[in-house]
């Protein structure tokens, strides 16, 4: 308890030191030509912070305190990553056309909030989310059909293998041709990208229930649908969730990249591309921050749902135990 509090205080102190160093790097005296001594100081501060993190992660704790510790360690690490980035960009005078400082990105996030929101709505909420929903639903549906009609499944195997090896991104120009410029063509790319992982994992999940468990249902004279609902779908959930999580990261990336091939003049991919060409990298990074935060949040939400719905699975039980 005491040790934990002490180490967190130490980490906070070191972060304060890091902030001071960052301010120093920004000052006209240092910006662009910081002396060797300055870099030595930065290195020292960072090593201390890492040592504090190592000590923190080794501190025994239970219950609430363990939660605090487990959150503090990666947060401290992340803050230092950003601090180092800020210090290096300012201190070494890296051109903003190559890499903007985090502080500039933050400022841009504030200023451009309305644009960022409009882009987010277009790309994340329309293209990615709708595409993800359709892709996942049809992936699961197709897996059920393939499961019901094994003849179809066996026949489709090589075609599905080939199709899943397609670099789906390459479909983007074709989708624009078929579905037009607006978000539906991007959603179509997302559908194509998410369909196969979900299909493959659901098929694997449906095969995951043990032979004995299936024999049990058989001994009750239960049919395909009953066995599916009572046994095979619950047993497949861990696999399905894995696929849903994977698909969630694919979806946003797919929607963004698909916008390379023609879009209306709103969207995260559109913005990243045009702003990069105009050398406004702060705006590019602001979009990336939005994408990562949204992606991580969605992923986290799915993971939380997974933990609730597959509480019985050993991998979940181990984590909570």
């Amino acid at each position, binding site marked *: 308890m005491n040790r934990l509090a002490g180490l967190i205080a130490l980490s906070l102190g070191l972060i304060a030191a890091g902030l001071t160093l960052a301010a120093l790097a920004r000052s006209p005296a240092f910006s662009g030509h910081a002396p060797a001594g300055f870099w030595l100081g930065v290195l020292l501060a960072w090593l201390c912070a*890492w040592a504090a*993190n*190592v000590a*923190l*992660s*080794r501190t025994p704790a239970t219950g609430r305190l363990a939660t605090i510790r*487990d959150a503090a*360690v*990666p947060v*401290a*690490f*992340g803050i230092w*990553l950003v601090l180092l980035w800020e210090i290096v960009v300012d201190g070494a005078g890296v051109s903003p056309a*190559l*890499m903007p400082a985090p502080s500039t990105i933050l400022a841009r996030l504030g200023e451009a909030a309305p644009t960022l929101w409009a882009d987010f709505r277009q790309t994340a909420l329309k293209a990615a989310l709708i595409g993800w929903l359709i892709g996942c639903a049809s992936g699961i549906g197709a897996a059920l059909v393939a499961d019901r009609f094994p*003849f*179809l499944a*066996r*026949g*489709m*195997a*090589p*075609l599905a*293998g*080939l*199709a899943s*090896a*397609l*670099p*789906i*991104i*390459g*479909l983007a*120009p*074709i989708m624009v*041709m*078929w579905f037009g410029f607006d978000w539906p063509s991007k959603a179509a790319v997302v559908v194509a990208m998410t369909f196969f992982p979900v299909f493959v994992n659901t098929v694997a999940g449906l095969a995951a229930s043990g032979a004995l468990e299936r024999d049990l249902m058989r001994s009750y004279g239960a049919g395909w649908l009953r066995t599916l609902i009572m046994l095979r779908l619950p047993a497949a959930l861990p696999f399905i969730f894995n696929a849903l999580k994977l698909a969630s*990261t694919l979806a*946003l*990336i797919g929607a*963004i*990249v698909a916008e*390379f*091939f023609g879009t209306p003049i709103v969207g*995260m*991919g559109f913005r*990243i*591309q045009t702003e*990069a060409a105009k050398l406004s*990298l702060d705006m*590019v990074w602001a979009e*990336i921050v939005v*994408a*990562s935060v*949204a*992606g*991580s949040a969605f*992923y986290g939400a799915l993971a939380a749902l997974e933990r609730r719905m597959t509480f019985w699975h050993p991998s979940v039980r181990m984590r909570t135990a």
Partner: protein
Amino acid sequence: MNAVALALPGRLARGNTLPILVVSACFLAFWYAAAIWMNAGLIAGRSSGLDAISFAKAAWSLDRPLLPAPHQILWELKTSLFDARLGTPRNLFTHIGVTLSSTLVGFAIGVTLGILLAIGVDRSRALDKSLTPWLVASQTIPILAIAPIVVTALGSVGLKGLIPKAIISAYLCFFPVAIGMAKGLASPDSAQRDLMRTYAAGARTTLTKLQLPASLPFLFASLKVAAAAAFVGAIVAELPTGAQSGLGARLLAGSYYGNTMQIWAALIAAALTASLLVGAVTLIERLALGPKGARR
């Protein structure tokens, strides 16, 4: 269909051959029908008063169709693979080779990085706790969208040509490897670990005698994912970075010049190459693990 199945020699009916033939035939038929339906608008504008057969023929032989017929793609593939002189930019093999070479370099970098990360995370609790959440977050960065920036940034520190593409490939494929390998290293159950403890085996012995062999099935499973990811990475890295050769450049050029057939041919070639790549990993897996694969 059942009657057909019965009439066929037993092995054919019982194996996968028949379903594959039937499903593929249905798929092709569907494709041809779709080609007529989708391209109808393009023909109607130009020539009117065609009978059904010549209408279908016309739909299947457009220069810039919305959906080309399968044989058109095959023809394009054949021309660009075998008719064009080998080693010239007009031959698709050249482009496959270019993409493949940066894929392989990126794959090697990514796999090495992934394995090292997994071992580090397995060894050091601090590294695990600090790094793992950020590794997950790193995958939400749309690296493909900022590929051009990455390429110029890397160019400014003197990395050019194949390397930037390979680095993007590596970025895409290190993650599945790291996750799979970490799972594999953690896969031995407590009894298997305790056994090593009773022998007073050190960390290195436990790694080489227990954890590494136990992680091989996991590693190979993620290597397959990683190989495909690296390949897609290389292609997409070619798209916006103005690469002059490679499958990505080919897709782009096809798109730029509205050459639908070239896009499809490049896509199919890419799918075949990716399948080969995954097949190669599967082959190595067989050799390394025996026919039983995962062996459990």
